[in-house]
């Protein structure tokens, strides 16, 4: 039951993809029902990075929680590999060092403190956090916190990563650096990735495929294949053209 901590790039299996079919989700609130998702469908092949872009409140977080098994759909089916969440805000534990935060998934599985630290330490170094192992989250920059938060979810050792607007809270420059960094990391640590964002450029630069969602109730209105080699330059005419395609699907004129 307890998986070995990830040391080598993990092999993705044939069933490590995602299949969301015609899923609906309604929340009952005091002010009446809120239809978050209606007939939402989405697929991801094993190892694929699928970015989901849509306006605020269209059900992106709800979609990721369904994929992670944190909610059940009212109708439709969700079939996917074991998924781990990277929540919208970094939510690092303020009483833990960067090292202990990074190892939280291991501790959650019952791994001892020393073992969790020994496993997480080389990763912090790989993630450019050498020297900050014993820093508390309050002493880290936004980019560092986001890297620790990503590492924390990565070390859960699950084939599917559900990233909820991972870079939304960062300043523009750090966000671009983190996008490049994420692609680098995923090149050596293959995972199936669902990345939710409301940043159209981010969706195009990061995704193998971009799923465009409508406003609430959210459903897929377009699916755009991004068959561009990486690394992608943001000024590349092909990237710009795809961006405009996504914006058009969102009903926004570029």
């Amino acid at each position, binding site marked *: 039951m307890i998986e070995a901590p990830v040391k080598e790039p993990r092999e993705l299996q044939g069933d490590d993809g995602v299949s969301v079919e015609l899923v609906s989700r309604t929340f009952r609130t005091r002010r009446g029902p809120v239809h978050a998702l209606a007939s939402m469908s989405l697929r991801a092949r094993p190892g694929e990075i699928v970015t989901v872009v849509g306006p605020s409140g269209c059900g992106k977080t709800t979609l990721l929680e369904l994929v992670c098994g944190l909610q059940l759909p009212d109708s439709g089916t969700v079939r996917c590999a074991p998924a781990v*969440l990277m929540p919208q805000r970094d939510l690092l*534990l303020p009483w833990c060092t960067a090292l202990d935060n990074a190892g939280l998934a291991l501790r959650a599985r019952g791994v001892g403190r020393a073992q969790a630290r020994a496993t997480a330490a080389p990763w912090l170094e790989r993630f450019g956090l050498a020297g900050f192992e014993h820093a*508390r989250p309050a002493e880290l920059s936004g980019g560092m916190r986001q890297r620790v938060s990503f590492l924390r*979810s990565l070390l859960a050792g699950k084939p599917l990563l559900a990233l909820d607007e991972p870079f939304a809270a960062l300043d523009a420059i750090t966000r671009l650096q983190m996008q490049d960094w994420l692609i680098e990391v995923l090149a050596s640590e293959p995972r199936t990735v669902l990345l939710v964002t409301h940043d159209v450029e981010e969706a195009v630069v990061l995704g193998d495929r971009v799923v465009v969602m409508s406003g609430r109730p959210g459903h897929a209105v377009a699916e755009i294949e991004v068959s561009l080699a990486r690394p992608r330059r943001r000024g590349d005419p092909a990237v710009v053209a795809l961006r405009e395609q996504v914006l058009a699907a969102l009903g926004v004129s570029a």
Partner: protein
Amino acid sequence: MRRGLSGWPWRAAALLVALVALWELYVDLGGADPLILPAPHEVARSLWVDRSLLGSNFLVTAEEVLLGILLASVTGLAFSAAIHFSPTLRRAVYPLLVASQTLPIPIVAPVLVLWLGFGILPKLVVIALVSFFSIVVTTLAGFAAVDPDLIKLMRTFDAPRQRTFRHIELPAALPSLFTGAKIAVTVAVIGAVFAEQAGASSGLGYLFEQSIPQLLTARAYAAVVILSAFAISLFALLSLAERWALPWAYQREQAAAP
């Protein structure tokens, strides 16, 4: 961050001196019978003259209060964890906890003495009874304040419920536990006085009880002064301990470069 301790002592001292001066004037000008309200200089004299008597009785009360708060913290934490985990228990026990706080201690204390004897035990129970409620309330608020997204994260880590409690909710609620204990300090001292009046042969509450009928009002006030000073010291001590034990709760964002 430094408002807590270094800011207030001289201001508080200045205010205290002003109040004591007013009190002295009031009594000296015949505002009150010194047997009912002794002048501050009489209280000060008693503090000096009766110092060994006050000191030995203070040690008794101090031990009761410290152990009582410890007992209250342990039971308070246990109660709040149980209530946090069980909605049924919350509905069944929480109202009774509130009701327990309305029991007048002078009525409860003699019963406890009857059951538990004249030793330290009934005092600890009274002190814990009056002080554990604030700990339960604040600690429960601490548990409830944990970000639900963190709980979700732990679920996607496949963490069993009790491990989420141990790694997330318990540490997150520790500052609230300290807050509860700081509130508890003051009522604990009052609780100790009542407990000693119900059946004791030593302690500042006992001394207080003995001094009034003997018309040694100044000595009774001296006991109160010591109790107040003790409560203030305990409060300050808890604040220091909290800062030492939970430095992260006082750390504001001071980010490094990206």
